[in-house]
């Protein structure tokens, strides 16, 4: 979900830039140089994950997985997802330049919220419970992302209101799919490498 240049009003764009700069500053503060390789490789992982298309009925959706990014990276998810969005805008033409701030807040904001809310639970729960919490987190992140997009559009003007509502409804299947995938991903990660979440929570967060 990338908003394009020219769609939003100037105050919304400016607010997006301010929030994104604040989030980046906070995220980088939680990211010592020692942890840059981990964060960079994970940032690349989420970039590749966003290229995966999952079938849904006759159509397909591409993954966002920002909930999972938040659960693994905590605050560091903010700069990590920003880098992905920057690369997508510059090399793929997805999104835009002036709206980069808004797009970052829309994708990375929910990631950090989910990470802060549920990160500890994922860390301490047994595998099955962690997978269920992660599924909730994955769904919540996409729900928040869609809600943020709707808010940005609604603040721009009333003419976007019907579209914003329809976009939210249309994303309910995506919320379900992301929830299922995030839950399964955490289930596997907890079984194969239980310390995966501990490692990063202690250091990157």
């Amino acid at each position, binding site marked *: 979900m990338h908003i394009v*240049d020219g769609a939003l009003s100037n105050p919304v764009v400016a607010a997006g830039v301010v929030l994104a700069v604040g989030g980046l500053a906070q995220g980088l503060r939680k990211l010592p140089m020692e942890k840059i390789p981990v964060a*960079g*490789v994970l940032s*690349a992982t989420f970039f590749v994950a966003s290229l995966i298309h999952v*079938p849904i009925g006759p159509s397909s959706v591409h993954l966002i997985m920002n909930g999972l990014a938040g659960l693994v990276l905590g605050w560091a998810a903010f700069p990590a997802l920003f880098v992905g969005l920057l690369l997508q805008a*510059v090399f793929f*033409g997805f999104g835009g330049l002036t709206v980069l701030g808004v797009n970052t807040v829309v994708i990375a904001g929910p990631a950090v919220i989910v990470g802060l809310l549920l990160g500890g639970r994922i860390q301490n729960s047994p595998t099955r419970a962690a997978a269920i919490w992660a599924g909730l987190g994955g769904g919540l992140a996409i729900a928040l992302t869609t809600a943020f997009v709707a808010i940005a559009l609604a603040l721009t003007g009333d003419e976007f209101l019907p*579209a914003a509502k329809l976009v939210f409804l249309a994303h309910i299947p995506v919320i379900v799919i992301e929830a299922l995938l995030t839950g399964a991903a*955490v289930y596997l990660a907890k079984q194969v490498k239980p310390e995966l979440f501990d490692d990063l929570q202690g250091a990157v967060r």
Partner: protein
Amino acid sequence: MTSVLSTIDKPLTETGGNRQVSWIGLIDPRIRILCAATFAVAVVACNDFLALSAAVVVAFGLLSVSRLPAMQTLKRVATMDSFIIFILLLLPFTVPGTQMFTLWGFPASWEGLWQAIEIALKANAIVLALMALVGTMEPVTLGHALHSLKVPAGLVHLLMFTVRYIDVLREEYLRLRQAMKARGFRPSTGWHTYRSFGYLVGMMLVRSMERSERILGAMKCRGFTGHIPLLDRMRFRPADALFAAGFCALLLGLAALEVTHGAI
């Protein structure tokens, strides 16, 4: 390197060499980034049809001199998010104004149509200019240029690592997909597919973590102390000044068009 990101077959060198196929590639990367950013801000500020059309023409001009594969790039830009296209299609029906036609009892307005066209023109002009000016850069060069534009070192290093490992991890992903295919996996709509894709992402996560541990180990073995030197070989030459001046003149032209034409 970074074939996922490359929009063109550039003669890359692994150290971040800056050889390019067109003269735009020889302009100082910092100037190109600043030009793309000012162009974006200027175009967003425009509201006049003539000025926006001129901006699209400028963007197409940049695209043609950048020697990006035109068709491929345009196709990429045209495949905007389906949700943006959806919003643009809805605009004529949600903006009140002079009636254009009625579709199933919903009136469409000229004002709404104009607003949708305005957004499409702005978005395409900015993205095309961005891809022509900055997208032709080698991703590593982008990192160095951002660093010399005073972007925090942490963010630049994060960008460099991401750029370096996108291709590696994409290959990892394709290997995993091939392994799934070999075991008879065919994606469809259903719990089995979603669980398998979830495991796939989880496995990528595990392997990435382990890879990053090896990377850090290798870096420490070579004396990594928490600081990565950034090559800074960019020089500001007369040709760059000329390009910057020319670009400013173009932007002033756009502004003049907006002011004079928009005022009438």
